[in-house]
């Protein structure tokens, strides 16, 4: 498949690193000069921009947390005057004060370039009709993907999220070939399409999924239901939005746009940089962002970097599928549980649907984990033992994966909540 910008995406490692070093020096100086928060942090740590002589020197600069960014609400992180800002986005703010993100005209060009690369890697071309089923709001997802797909030359359907039956009608009538959505919403759309008996008239061939962590099992389910190539991409408002990285057709990690982002992996406990290939928290530094640079931002996402070459010919570092955001992690009776581990057991299980809900309660000072799944296979109603077998099988597999006893509850189809944006599957009542 095509590579959008082979000069960068397939460049020699030494050339990539030369570009990174030059841009890192610029970005650190830019933040130091124009964003008081970064200036103060560096002064306090006794670091000057001129101390950055190699890429490794970045470890001298203090890490930045989400809480620190929140303290700068709304515009104290801007490194340019507002007249140079042409767009403002913000994170949803569901977990607290939203994080705002400003963009200059050139930032939007950079963003579109990053998306054009990952969308091309995922299979989109100028011949495609792309249905963007992300909400066109303050959220970076829709506008981010939109800019890059337009750059490629896709015919974009900016339908936004919601009104799922209409989504399916448009998908069928307009002949959409590329779908942009969260994996959970894409799955729900497939379900509605099946109910409308429209799935066989749908011409989708590519799915570019992102904005929430998902599992290989979820990907397999989406590929099976729609008959598509499903790739995943990654990004976050704090550093730009989607476009930090994305998978190619080989689906073996997300290629990082390294000329725009410098990726490190740290030990989330100590903050120490970990050697290449080790699992830890992803830390990102923007290398080309004008309006709002981010220096050593702690993403709270747990992953691993991969430097082995990819069969697609791209030489960029890849990052593994996000195992889970560290703040999504549940601690149940002292055991760390990522919702993605539960999903990997549930999706694709015979007899049940792909939707699920996780409920955590505390009874008599003990944590209790309940997983609800929908019973869809009516043939299991022949015998009680069949239903119990389904439940016991899921429970046994969850116990193997989590080392925990989990209560598995079968519920009627279409009773668990469906999501049009990012799925919220965990209800923690503790």
């Amino acid at each position, binding site marked *: 498949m095509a590579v959008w910008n082979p000069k960068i995406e397939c460049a020699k490692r030494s050339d990539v690193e030369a570009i990174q070093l030059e841009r890192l020096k610029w970005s650190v100086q830019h933040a130091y000069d124009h964003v008081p928060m970064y200036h103060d942090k560096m002064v306090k740590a006794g670091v000057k921009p001129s101390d950055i002589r190699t890429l490794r020197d970045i470890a001298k600069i203090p890490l930045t947390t989400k809480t620190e960014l929140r303290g700068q609400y709304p515009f104290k992180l801007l490194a340019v005057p507002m007249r140079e800002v042409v767009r403002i986005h913000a994170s949803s703010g569901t977990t607290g004060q939203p994080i705002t993100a400003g963009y200059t005209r050139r930032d939007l060009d950079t963003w579109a370039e990053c998306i054009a690369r990952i969308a091309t890697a995922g299979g989109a071309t100028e011949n495609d009709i792309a249905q963007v089923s992300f909400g066109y709001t303050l959220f970076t997802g829709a506008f981010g993907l939109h800019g890059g797909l337009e750059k490629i030359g896709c015919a974009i359907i900016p339908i936004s999220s919601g009104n799922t039956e209409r989504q399916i009608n448009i998908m069928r009538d307009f002949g959409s070939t590329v779908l942009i959505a969260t994996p959970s919403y894409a799955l729900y759309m497939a379900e509605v399409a099946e109910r409308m008996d429209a799935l066989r008239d749908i011409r989708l061939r590519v799915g570019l999924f992102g904005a929430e962590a998902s599992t290989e099992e979820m990907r397999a389910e989406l590929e099976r239901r729609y008959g598509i190539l499903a790739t995943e991409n990654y990004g976050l408002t704090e550093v730009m939005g989607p476009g930090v990285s994305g998978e190619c057709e080989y689906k073996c990690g997300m290629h990082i746009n390294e000329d725009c982002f410098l990726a490190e992996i740290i030990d989330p406990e100590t903050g120490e940089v970990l050697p290449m290939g080790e699992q830890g928290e992803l830390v990102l530094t923007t290398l080309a962002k004008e309006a709002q640079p981010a220096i050593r931002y702690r993403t709270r996402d747990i992953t691993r970097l991969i430097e082995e070459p990819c069969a697609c010919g791209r030489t960029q570092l890849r990052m593994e599928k996000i195992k889970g955001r560290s703040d999504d992690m549940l601690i149940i009776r002292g055991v760390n549980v990522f919702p993605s581990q539960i999903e990997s057991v549930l999706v694709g299980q015979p007899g049940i649907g792909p939707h699920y809900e996780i409920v955590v309660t505390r009874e008599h000072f003990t944590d209790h984990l309940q997983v609800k799944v929908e*019973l*869809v*296979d*009516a*043939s299991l*109603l*022949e*015998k*009680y033992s069949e*239903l*119990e077998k389904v*439940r016991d099988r899921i429970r046994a597999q969850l116990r193997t994966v989590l080392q925990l006893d989990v209560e598995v*509850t*079968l*519920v*009627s*189809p*279409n*009773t668990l909540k469906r999501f049009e944006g990012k799925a919220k599957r965990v209800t923690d009542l503790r």
Partner: protein
Amino acid sequence: MYVKQISVFIENTPGRLAHFTKLLGDNNIDLVSLSVADTTHFGILRGIVADYEKAVKLISENGYTVKLTDVLAVSVPDHPGGLAEVLETLSGHDIVVEYLYSFVRNAGDHALIIFRVDKLDEAEKVLTEAGVRLLSQDEVRGL
């Protein structure tokens, strides 16, 4: 001569069974026979309705998981030992009864009982040979 039984998955939460039976009632579907078994977390409602095609359509459209199963509607002499005779006939032919439940109504001096067995064809044959009457779908419809 089989009759069609509906099996419906019912969550064991307050009001679910009431909700389901109201759905049938509102749509004028009569349960002529019924059995509900439950565990802590879920139940299966099994029953015979006059118009099963209509019932299945309605039930699944309303978001329930529903399955049709072939069962035998057996007319059992309504006197002590009547059921034992039928069961002995079945067990004498190595036919296993998975479950059974009785009708809400009866037919004079005969009780009507629904049997679900592992070997349907054989059960039908041996019962008929033993002079036990089995009801057809149409007869059930007329009850």
